[in-house]
């Protein structure tokens, strides 16, 4: 058996040699032009709006025409053997939206493709992708490196829409891939789109046959993805500017969470207030109260809890929170006891429905109840002594006070 036959025995099936490629001096270029009307609000995007949505360091002046939307099509899922064979880059012009796609018809064209990418990136201030921070940009970095080319062009401010979208829609939608967002958020479902998992094999078949029509679907898909990035970004900007227009309470609540993470506390509270009427009302109410508590606005927080009790929202939590507030902030033991008793009553109602977590809450309430009863008695016996002592530990946490709650009589 010669080496060739052995190789076959080890794991071969046999294959066909491919036609040799012709030497070229550039990669293939495609351009797609789309009307400005397809991108509502895109020209009005301001630096301030973007700043509201992300903590990215933006250039002093932001021109919406200086945002580059980029998406790659690749031969695999990563590692240094994966190549971006098609890179599409889109941007707004004075007349509409242009997408320029660079395709390497064979591996020797990769350096040309990368040169176009570098040149493209050089002309813009902000990069916008979908999952680009973990996929497209590291992959391109790797490709530049493998071709011994400068990769500093990739170091521009980068908006990754995947993360922004997740923050906004994960609660309601679960998975947030681009196709689903187009369908549910933008209301434009894709028809006969090529599944992403089939892309690499299509390209390898193209390499063997050089039949360009095999790539038509991929080119179309890529251009559509890029246009969607622009539409999606501007759609989000619109929502951030006018949260009252959002139809789903979950989304408004999620936006509040996103804003709070970016320290836009006032905007966040606005969202929470808006969301309180809808399905995410419980979550939004809680988030609002917690937000007040965090900034030390205890009375406002208490007011939110009271409103929640009034609206029968949030279950037991508002009672417990108010009990804490009355006990530790207001030092109003009778009020705290009343809240605890109401919570316990509600709890026993819920126990009938035999929820497992209720048991734990119930135990905690029982503990709180007994402590408060003790403190009630102590207060009755010792008058102001306990109260003044309690004030010294004003800033302590709930747990901290509990340990100190019963000084020796």
């Amino acid at each position, binding site marked *: *058996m010669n*080496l*060739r036959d*052995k*190789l*076959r*025995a*080890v*794991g*071969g*099936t*046999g*294959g*066909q*040699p*491919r036609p*040799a*490629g012709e*030497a070229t001096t550039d990669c293939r270029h495609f351009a797609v032009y789309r009307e400005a009307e397809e991108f509502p609000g895109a020209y009005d995007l301001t630096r301030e709006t973007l700043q509201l949505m992300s903590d990215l360091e933006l250039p002093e002046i932001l021109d919406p025409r200086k945002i580059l939307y980029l998406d790659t099509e690749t*031969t*695999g*899922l*990563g*590692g*240094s*053997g994966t*190549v971006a064979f098609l890179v599409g880059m889109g941007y707004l012009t004075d007349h509409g939206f242009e997408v320029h796609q660079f395709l390497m018809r*064979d*591996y*020797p064209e990769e350096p040309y493709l990368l040169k176009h990418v570098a040149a493209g990136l050089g002309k813009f201030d902000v990069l916008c992708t979908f999952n680009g921070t973990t996929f497209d940009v*590291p992959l391109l*970095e*790797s490709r530049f*490196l*493998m071709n011994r080319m400068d990769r500093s062009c990739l170091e521009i401010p980068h908006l990754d829409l995947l993360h922004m979208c997740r923050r906004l829609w994960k609660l309601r939608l679960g998975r947030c891939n681009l196709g689903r967002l187009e369908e549910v958020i933008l209301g434009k479902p894709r028809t006969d789109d090529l599944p992403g998992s089939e892309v*690499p*094999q299509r390209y*390898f078949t193209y*390499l*063997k046959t050089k039949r360009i029509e095999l790539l038509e679907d991929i080119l179309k898909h890529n251009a559509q993805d890029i246009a969607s990035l622009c539409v999606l970004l501007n759609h989000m900007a619109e929502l951030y500017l006018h949260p009252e227009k959002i139809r789903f309470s979950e989304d408004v609540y999620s936006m509040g969470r996103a804003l709070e993470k970016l320290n836009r506390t006032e905007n966040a509270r606005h969202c929470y207030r808006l969301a309180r009427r809808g399905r995410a009302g419980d979550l939004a109410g809680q988030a609002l109260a917690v937000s007040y508590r965090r900034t030390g606005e205890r009375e406002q927080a208490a007011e939110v809890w009271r409103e929640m009790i009034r609206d029968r929202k949030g279950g037991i939590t508002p009672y417990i929170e108010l009990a804490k507030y009355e006990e530790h902030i207001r030092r109003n033991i009778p009020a705290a006891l009343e809240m605890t008793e109401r919570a316990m009553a509600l709890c026993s109602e819920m126990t009938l429905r035999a929820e497992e977590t209720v048991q734990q809450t119930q135990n905690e309430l029982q503990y709180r109840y007994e402590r408060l009863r003790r403190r009630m008695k102590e207060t009755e016996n010792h008058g102001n002594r306990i109260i003044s002592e309690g004030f010294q530990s004003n800033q302590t946490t709930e747990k901290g006070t509990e340990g100190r709650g019963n000084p020796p009589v």
Partner: protein
Amino acid sequence: MNVSQLAEQLRQDHMFMKDVTRWEVIPARKARTLPFPACMDERIKPALAKRGIYELYTHQAKSLEATARGEDVTVVTPTASGKTMCYNLPVLSAILKNPDARALYLFPTKALSADQVSELYDMIEEMGVDIKTYTYDGDTPAAARKAVRQAGHIVVTNPDMLHSGILPHHTKWVKLFENLQYIVIDEIHSYRGVFGSNLANVLRRLMRLCEFYGSHPQYILCSATIANPRELAETLIGRPVTLIDDNGAPMGERHFVFYNPPVVNRQLGIRKGAIPVVRSISGMLLKNGIQAITFARSRLTVEVLTRYLKDMVRDPLGNAGRVRGYRGGYLPGERREIERGLRAGQVDAVVSTNALELGIDIGALDACVLCGYPGTIASAWQQAGRAGRRQGTSIVFFVASSAAIDQYIVNHPDYFLHQSPENALLNPDNLYILLSHFKCAAFELPFEDGDGFGNAPGPEELLDYLSEEGILHHVEGKYHWSAEDFPASEISLRSAAAENFIIVDISDPAHHRVVGEMDRFTAPMLLHENAIYMHEGRQFQVEKLDFDACKAFIRAVDVGYYTDADLNINLSLLDIEKEEPFAGTAVAALGEIKVTALVTMFKKIKFDTHETLGFGHVRLPETDMHTTAMWWTLPDELAEKIPSDRLKNGMMGIANLLRIVCPLYLMCAPQDIAVVYQVRSPITDKPTVIFYDNCPGGIGLAHKAYGMKQLLLEKALQVAEDCPCEYGCPSCVGPVGEVGEDGKRTAIRLLRELTK
């Protein structure tokens, strides 16, 4: 009682001494030192001084100097001789001189790397310098990985992680590859066989990438004592090395006791089992408060002995934490706990497989008991090295089992004491292994026309083949990876099988827990349904083996027996490479075969008496392996003269003899090879004895055996003729019960004909 007193007492004990075939005292050895060499950075000296080090042992100083001269170094050192200094000092010196310099440390297991890094941390902390040492393995949190890639001066990892986590993503490791100055590989003696052949190819890939990034790293390798450290090192890295084997570390006095359990049945040549003897020797050490390690050859024996020893020291609540079992398959946390217990002196007795043979730091113990010969001289010394401090006396007991190789060693202690240890063989050009790594290499960096792959043969043919398969795309002088796969995920470096079996304890239905794991080849033997699986001396019964999902479900039981499975082997021919006639019309041949292994049944064996209680059937799929083999085919006229029953017994005898002789003359471990006989072989259609490499693709043992095809038969004949038994015994052709009363005679007759 301390070790010296115990040794003295045993020597007075005639009942014990009558079965001791040799009591060797290895005298204490003084330290030999040299001053710090000039190449060592001044800033290291105060840190060493704090540890009371003002000079280096000779082997340390010499390896530093050789490294400074730019040579690739291989240091051969026994256990506890300060080998880590041999690489830590040059690496620290280099980074102190140039903060951009990088080093890569490779240890065979995660446990070892954790151990060595803690020592390095201490040194760096004492120096108060900014040298970042990071472990990068499967346990490194994702958030920390970026820091390791960017800033780690010393990256500590294992071959598996280098193979699948670093090399395929080399563009994220630019800093490391551009500045790589030293590659440190410790415990290279453990890279034999498949693992070593894989590592050699991983290193070929590593060096290819270094070339791309313009770095030219030097190697510092460490090995335990083996016969061919230079050959092993040079095969691994594909470059010449400077060998440093002048050990200057001190060693206290050591007693080496060879004990052969007494014969209990003269006619059948049956000896008292090793396990009961070890039970009493280890028990004696335990009762005298002498910290000892007992090595057993199989996981099963480990569990049986652990149970025996635990029973001796159980407190009223049934706890026996002073006695621990240790073997592959225990979870990492459990193992670390046992290692700590040994170092801290909380564990007095540990029973282990060769899992503790490697350089995991468990401190030096006072005594060591080998239950059976571990198979190679190198292993035996490694295990014995676990007992022995730099000062003070230590003792090693070797208790022979009735296995032929054990009997040979215990009756020829000089062979053991003076013969050089075995060769560590590997074959980086094993086609299976080479091809897999070639794919990985092509993925990592396109090959160009005329490129080589280390010193691998036939790169052009491999490239053409992969192009024809459509995996590579050849255009303008470059071979581009053009497949969707991630080739590194398709290879496991340690075995041909990629996936391990997970062992799940379902005793508590509300709380299933994973208690261990096992490789794919062993699982059918030990985890078939109804097998008794032992873990830390506790018994479990296997309820279900889900072969496709690689899971075994076990439930705690308490029964008086354990199980032992029968392996059924089938062979088929793939290709004949060479053949030549000998001794008339007999034929010897070398080629490639497919080995199909199938477990069909198991035995239930009673504890203590070791009698067979019953049998059970096993229904599991077969496992396949392609490997290299050589075989001896008996001449027709000889086979025709002997009735087939007797022929079968004779051939069984020859196979048993070859199993004894081959490891000794090929200098390999018994488990690396397999010898089977077939009265009518599907390979030759004639009576045939077949020898094969017991690993996929082979590591070159069959080739070596083919070169000794006459000698091996002559030595087999010699063993049979020299053995005093009448009709056969476990030390030659096998026990009479197996080979029958005519087995030995027929084997000798056949061998005489074949060696005429």
